[in-house]
């Protein structure tokens, strides 16, 4: 009798375990599939050509930095890297200043036109950036600012995202803190600088990370305004390595270098993401759900 119930219990536990496992397994398999292309990039980038052509080998038996050296020798990668870093850092700094000021006013200050301005900003999100690309391009040519940081940095500053991010954050900000600051004799700008901004650290971090990544990865605009090789950003410059094998004529020998080249583009944001992923996810969540 007791034996029987024990075996039923055993069966129930193992059944539950199997059910859990059956639900768990597909997620794990898909996760591996999703990571695999990135792993394959790194894998190919450190294998000698001989092994790349020999076919699939999941763990490289021989490691070489040859491809990375070739990429550095063949392309002005350092210059492109500097262009990308300077552009992204300036856009992050500028966007955070503009976004926090505007977001604060839209969330915490009382003035005629507030809701109209907010509505205007939000509805501009419905308009694809391609609409303004031709006029901006003409403007860049007329002002002769192609091949310069001006054309790389200024247009991305018009992004509504940081404004929205800060507005959402400041809306949840308790009224009492502002009142306390006012009693202590803080002006509006004082409240903003000494109370609101320090408290908005999570929004600032999430914003910085997301703005940095999206500018680092930006493609169409930098492609248009860089006429000279030395003004390309990293992703635009490395597009050189697509001129490989799309016609089906086999020249696999270039793939080691191509993978090293894109690894140089990918690693900064990937490492950044792995360290700070909590803020990435918080940033996306803020924008998504509070909207």
């Amino acid at each position, binding site marked *: 009798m007791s034996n029987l119930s024990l075996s039923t219990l055993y069966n129930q536990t193992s059944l539950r375990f199997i059910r859990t496992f059956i*639900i768990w397994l*597909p*997620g794990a398999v*898909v*996760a*591996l599939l*999703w990571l695999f*292309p*990135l792993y*394959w*990039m790194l894998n*190919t980038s450190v294998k000698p050509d001989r092994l790349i052509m020999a*076919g*699939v080998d999941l763990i490289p038996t021989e490691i070489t930095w040859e491809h990375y050296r070739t990429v550095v020798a063949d392309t002005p990668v350092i210059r492109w890297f500097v262009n990308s870093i300077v552009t992204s850092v300036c856009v992050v700094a500028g966007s955070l*200043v*503009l976004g926090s*000021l*505007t977001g604060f*006013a*839209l969330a915490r200050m009382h*003035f*005629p036109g507030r809701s109209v301005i907010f509505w205007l900003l939000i509805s*501009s999100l419905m*308009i*694809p950036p*391609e*609409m*303004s*690309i*031709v*006029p901006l391009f*003409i403007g860049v*040519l007329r002002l002769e600012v192609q091949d310069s940081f001006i054309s790389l940095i*200024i247009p991305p*500053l*018009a992004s509504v995202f940081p404004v929205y991010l800060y507005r959402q954050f400041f809306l949840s900000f308790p009224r009492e803190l502002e009142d306390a600051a006012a009693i202590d004799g803080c002006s*509006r*700008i004082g409240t903003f600088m000494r109370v609101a901004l320090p408290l908005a650290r999570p929004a600032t971090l999430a914003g910085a990370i997301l703005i940095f990544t999206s500018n*680092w*990865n930006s*493609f*169409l605009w930098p492609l248009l305004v860089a006429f000279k090789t030395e003004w390309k950003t990293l992703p635009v410059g*490395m597009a050189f390595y*697509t001129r490989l094998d*799309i016609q*089906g004529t086999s020249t696999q020998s270039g*793939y080691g270098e*191509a*993978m090293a*080249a*894109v690894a140089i*583009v990918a690693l900064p944001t*990937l490492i950044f*993401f*792995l360290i700070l*992923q909590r803020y*990435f996810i918080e940033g996306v*969540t803020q924008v*998504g*759900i509070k909207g």
Partner: protein
Amino acid sequence: MTHLADRAAPDGWLSRLSRIRYRGRRVDWQAYLFILPFALIFIVITLLPIFFGIYISFNEWGIVGDPEWVGLDNFREAMQDDWIPKVWGNTFQMAALVVPGTVLVALLMALWINREQWLSGPIRTAFFAPHVVAITVTAIIWIWIFEKETGLLNLALYGIGIPKQGWLTTSKWVIQSISLVTIWQAVGFHMVILLAGLKEIPAEMGEAAVIDGASAWQAFWRITLPLLTPALGLVITLEIISAFRIFGQVYLMTGGGPGGHSATIVSYIYHEGFVRFRLGFAAALSLLLFLTILLFTLLRARLVREHSN
């Protein structure tokens, strides 16, 4: 003395200004200073270019020489151009794969992560990781995976007896291949939005339904999905917009080929505007792109409204 009196003067313009009320509260005039820097950039970079772009689309506008007013010629040409049905068709085909594909996969991933099982954290990281790399990275990695002779995909398929395919070089597969790459990169972002939506749903609601005798499946259809509608609506709208704007992967992976079979609206705009420098025509195409996106997002909003009624 006078100085002090000035300050206290009840009729100074500054103090009069500070007493102006709007909807029962004092107006915070400083707000306009807070907004000014961004407003200037927004007007110059976003607002004016939109109207200027509409103006350009009525002109023949090259990179040199003076623009010439041509009225509706650019739009008339667009109606007769053989490429227009082709690039719009290709883009629709990609959107038809990418939008449902991304939303469905992102939803499954979000539901899976939301169960908080073993290794949930690292697996969520894996799903999101492709979203943080540049399109150049994505495109070149997948060119290599799709490579005909020694690419991973063909080697794997060959291993199970399927003949090698030219994934990016034949009209049969090119749209599917580019859509797959697009989905791979996009799902992580949408998964996070849906996950946040799921977290807002109180767990007790599902439990209560199950206790009331509903199966897990019924609980999902009757409770989880309806409560997730706002997040799903946002994800679908964002995905429609980005699917109609597919450019980088096409530009980098196929250049629109083979024979224009993967050319999209934006890659055609790029080609007309920035390779052939027909800026007026490109501006007209951009306007048509905007109207297409507008139509589909409105349609989406309408469908959801009818569905929830």
